[in-house]
């Protein structure tokens, strides 16, 4: 039978980023999930290729299987169908601290050359910042203690800076070997996935290096969006575009964020 030529479904850069992040999660992975794009990507992985993934939210949800995507890390939809609901001290002390989590999924307002993240302040000084960001949340200990970290963030020169204004969460510090010197038990950022491609630490220098491009993106585009002289891996690859199924599930999920209009207190 003749193969029917079919034009692939067009997709947005954000969709490619979320799909690429979901593909990082293997079935059975125990994953600490932040809200926003990380939560979307993790649930996309759960519904497509990784049904046995264990999603942990810092509100104390272990083994979440939300029917619709939550707006916050504490929506009721996360409780329904979860394996366990535990207190916040328990989630950090019993589950994260001893190293029971495989992958931590993080984002930030700034990411630097060595994968350090800033979610605290931009500009000015700490007491008088130009921009006050939400702060640390669970990130410092997730970045320190998960076996691996996946960072998911849009790539612009304001975000990809040579040195973060404030180290909220440690990536590789300021050189290869810093994590070991600091005694951090987790492995650090394995990959930083953006709307242009992905970056990974150079094995010798720990500097974030371009390792893949999304279909349609260019090295020049990645360099223009990066605040340090971006090195390109000799093995630069092009990410597979989203499959029809990945796109269909992603769009269905995204449409459900926060659920339907609700009335509280009745």
């Amino acid at each position: 039978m003749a193969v029917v030529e079919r034009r692939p479904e067009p997709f947005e850069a954000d969709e490619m980023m979320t799909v690429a992040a979901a593909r990082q999660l293997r079935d059975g992975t125990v994953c600490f999930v932040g809200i926003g794009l990380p939560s979307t990507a993790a649930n996309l992985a759960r519904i497509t290729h990784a049904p046995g993934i264990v999603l942990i939210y810092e509100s104390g949800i272990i083994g979440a299987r939300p029917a619709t995507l939550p707006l916050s890390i504490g929506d009721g939809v996360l409780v329904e169908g979860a394996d366990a609901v535990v207190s916040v001290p328990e989630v950090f002390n019993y589950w994260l601290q001893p190293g029971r989590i495989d992958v931590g999924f993080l984002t930030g307002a700034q990411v630097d050359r060595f994968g350090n993240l800033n979610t605290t302040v931009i500009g000015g000084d700490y007491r008088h910042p130009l921009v006050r960001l939400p702060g640390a949340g669970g990130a410092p200990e997730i970045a320190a203690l998960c076996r691996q970290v996946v960072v998911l963030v849009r790539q612009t020169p304001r975000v990809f800076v040579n040195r973060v204004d404030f180290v909220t969460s440690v990536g590789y510090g300021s050189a290869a070997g810093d994590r070991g010197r600091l005694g951090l038990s987790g492995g650090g950022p394995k990959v930083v996935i953006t709307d242009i491609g992905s970056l990974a630490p150079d094995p010798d220098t720990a500097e974030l290096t371009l390792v893949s491009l999304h279909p349609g993106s260019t090295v020049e585009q990645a360099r223009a969006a990066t605040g340090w002289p971006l090195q390109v891996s000799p093995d630069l690859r092009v990410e597979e575009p989203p499959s029809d199924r990945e796109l269909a599930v992603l769009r269905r999920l995204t449409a459900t964020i926060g659920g339907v209009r609700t009335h509280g207190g009745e």
Partner: protein
Amino acid sequence: MAEIVSVDEAIAALVADGDTVALEGFTHLIPFAAGHEIIRQGRRDLTLVRMTPDLIYDQMIGMGCARRLIFSWGGNPGVGSLHRFRDAVENGWPVPLEIEEHSHAGMANRYVAGATGLPFAVLRGYVGTDLPAHTDTIRWVTCPFTGEVLAAVAALRPDVTVVHAQRADRRGNVQMWGILGVQKEAVLAAKRSLVTVEEVVDTLERRPGDVILPGFSVTCVAEVPGGAHPSYALGYSLRDNDFYRRWDSISRDRDSFLGWMREAVLESDGRRRTTS
């Protein structure tokens, strides 16, 4: 045994100007009605403690109740900034706000230390970050057994902790379930406590995974149905995500914020909850 009173009586009796006050509830069961009563009663110079300040502290900060904030994540979850919190830190409006900033793991352990009656807690945290340089309640200790250097965080001991729960019985035993955050630790760490509840019942019917705060460990209980809105009480209400989204535009501008507060909080009766 906890005394069963109205929420306005409880705030009047338990919260004084200058107190250190924790209104806890991790996204779920946030005691909004009690926070609104603190605003209506015009408390000033409070040190507010909360892991996730959320909309309730955005409102209290914007209305000038707070002098200091102890926290670990100050955003509108899934939406963006807390504009009143940012305005206070960036511009000192309506009054300057001092901050004492931690990670979630650090804050959770500070409450655990308070609840267990210890002066501090230890954790593997903060290493390599810029937080310890700005936060005096993060120090370092050496393990006497292994020599490992660990973070030490000072115990939190609020003058008053306020939480919301699903139910209490007439003797003041409190029952809560679902996402329980640090509420139990925050109540046990405090000198005084208020629990607002969806309903006061004759007998508490136990549920899987529920937590009971015995009446002797709680100072006051007040019945406030819908008292967590726009947060929620599992089994009674759903999180009003639309309101959380709307808050972004209500709170972005000082006048629009003040107008909303006047209408929805200052001129409203705390015992008759609006649910809009």
